[in-house]
């Protein structure tokens, strides 16, 4: 269990991150909001609850870039004026993470199925150099359709890359349908186990759940894969767990209602 203070700090970080990216999406009239709401706590915990300064984050689900940019504004890597360029002409902050221009974004992502291999390469380099660096990779469940993801999975297990933490944002929705209707993934845990991972399940919106994952990682004898059960578009009441949250921008009073909802959630989860 997290200490009360740490837990509440993480909650505050997540609240700031979500409020910031909602503002970004609103200003840009852009979509992929549901994808960012799905992985906000995962990214928050990696950055503020787990990683060391030299570790890397690979957001393989690059379409949630706004949540990554907002995270990097929260840790001071990006400035507010950087953030305000999001989605505009002449920006580095495109709808998918850029190549080589932003600290803490080592690789451009967005074409699905590349991120786990990137993590494998960085993880292998760290193993060869014995520098203790960890690599956190956040994949969507939709990109488990990509064969290259499974090539990377085989490789990570075979090379015993225990310095990689593979988070799967299991919101059960992908580009044009529910994951189980488009390309059946279940039994996902069994698949990952069969590949040789130590498979952990987490409530993907709960920091205490991630803290348990962190403890398990330290004791794991095999590379770990974390199935994070999440809700796409969480807090966007009209579109929670709906495909629309993947594509649609906010309209009318949605911005205010989502903000109210995440604020309410923050207050309810805060340990008093």
């Amino acid at each position, binding site marked *: 269990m997290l200490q009360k203070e740490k837990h509440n700090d993480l909650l505050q970080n997540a609240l700031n991150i979500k409020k910031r990216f909602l503002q970004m999406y609103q200003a840009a009239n852009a979509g992929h909001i549901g994808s960012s709401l799905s992985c906000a706590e995962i990214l928050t915990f990696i950055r503020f609850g787990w990683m060391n300064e030299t570790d890397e984050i690979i957001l393989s689900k690059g379409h949630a870039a706004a949540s990554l940019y907002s995270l990097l504004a929260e840790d001071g890597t990006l400035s507010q004026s950087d953030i305000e360029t999001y989605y505009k002409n002449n920006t580095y902050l495109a709808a998918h993470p850029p190549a080589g221009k932003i600290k803490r974004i080592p690789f*451009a992502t967005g074409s699905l199925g590349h991120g786990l*291999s*990137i993590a494998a*390469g960085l993880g292998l380099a*760290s193993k060869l150099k014995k520098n203790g660096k960890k690599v956190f990779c956040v994949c969507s469940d939709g990109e488990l359709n990509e064969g*290259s993801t499974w*090539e990377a999975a085989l*490789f990570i297990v075979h090379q015993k890359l225990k310095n990689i933490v593979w988070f799967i944002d299991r919101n059960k929705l992908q580009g044009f349908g529910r994951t189980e209707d488009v390309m059946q993934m279940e039994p996902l845990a069994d698949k990952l186990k069969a590949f040789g991972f130590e498979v952990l399940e987490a409530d993907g919106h709960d920091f205490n759940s991630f803290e348990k994952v962190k403890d398990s990682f330290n004791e794991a004898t095999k590379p770990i894969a974390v199935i994070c059960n999440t809700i796409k578009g969480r807090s966007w009441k009209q579109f929670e767990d709906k495909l629309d949250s993947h594509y649609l921008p906010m309209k009318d009073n949605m911005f205010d209602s989502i903000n109210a909802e995440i604020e309410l959630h923050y207050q309810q989860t805060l340990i008093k």
Partner: protein
Amino acid sequence: MRKEFALAIIEAKKKHDNLVFVTGDLGYMALEQVMEVFGEEFINAGVAEQNMITVSAGLAHEGFIPFVYSIAPFVALRPYEQIRNDVCLHNLPVKLVGNGGGYGYGIMGATHHCLEDIGALRMLPNMKVIVPLTAEDVVQAISFMVKDSSPNYLRMNLAAKFDFEVAEFAAWRHLKKGEKATVIGTGPVLQNIVNAYAELDFWCLSVFPVIEIPDALIESIERTGKVIFIEEHLGEGGLRETLSFHLLGKLKKAVQVLSLSASGYPSGKYGNQQWHQEENSLAGESLKNRVGSFLS
């Protein structure tokens, strides 16, 4: 060139500790010594080329220089998007090595040939495609690749041998002085026309994309009034296409052009490398006939 490649990479590893070798499960009876010298920095990534390329990009990002080896189509085409996004877009020093460019794998068939690699890779950002001519070239090409901080692709084939001295490896080389026509070729297939028509003016191009055209080459073309392109690759996207563009802006007089290039599988049948070259007028009597009528 495989033997020379293995020896050259071993020598390079002795000088550059940050070299790693990554193979897509290829190397039987060829890379055993490389494996021994590289130790834990020899990685058999299995038959999983997409992952192999991106893993190599990750290694390069962390300061390693990965040499990534497979049969040409499996390293150049199969993981094309991984090369584009993860290697070239980030200008990382990943060194692709494709064995058997062109019809090099002969009777193994069309899936093992690679007639599109130069064209496909030369247009990617930061990428240099290197096509050695002789066995000696391979050693110098490896040295060039280790020093170059960008992505490269080495297109290997059976090395050409000449009965005259060939200048050291360079993007452009004037191989042999002659008259009647100016021949520009890439890779060992050049020797087929050298052997058949020794009296022509021969030039070898070994690095793509083409940055500049030597003045002496322009003079040669304007003097002979005839250009012959030869490549074991499709003319579209290959040497013919890229040089046509460059020459168009340079030549002050009209010249006649003959393009000798691979056209695929006209009969749908298979044979050894020489057989495929002959079917495409890149060797033997068919080459002699086409060049003969062009010159007459």
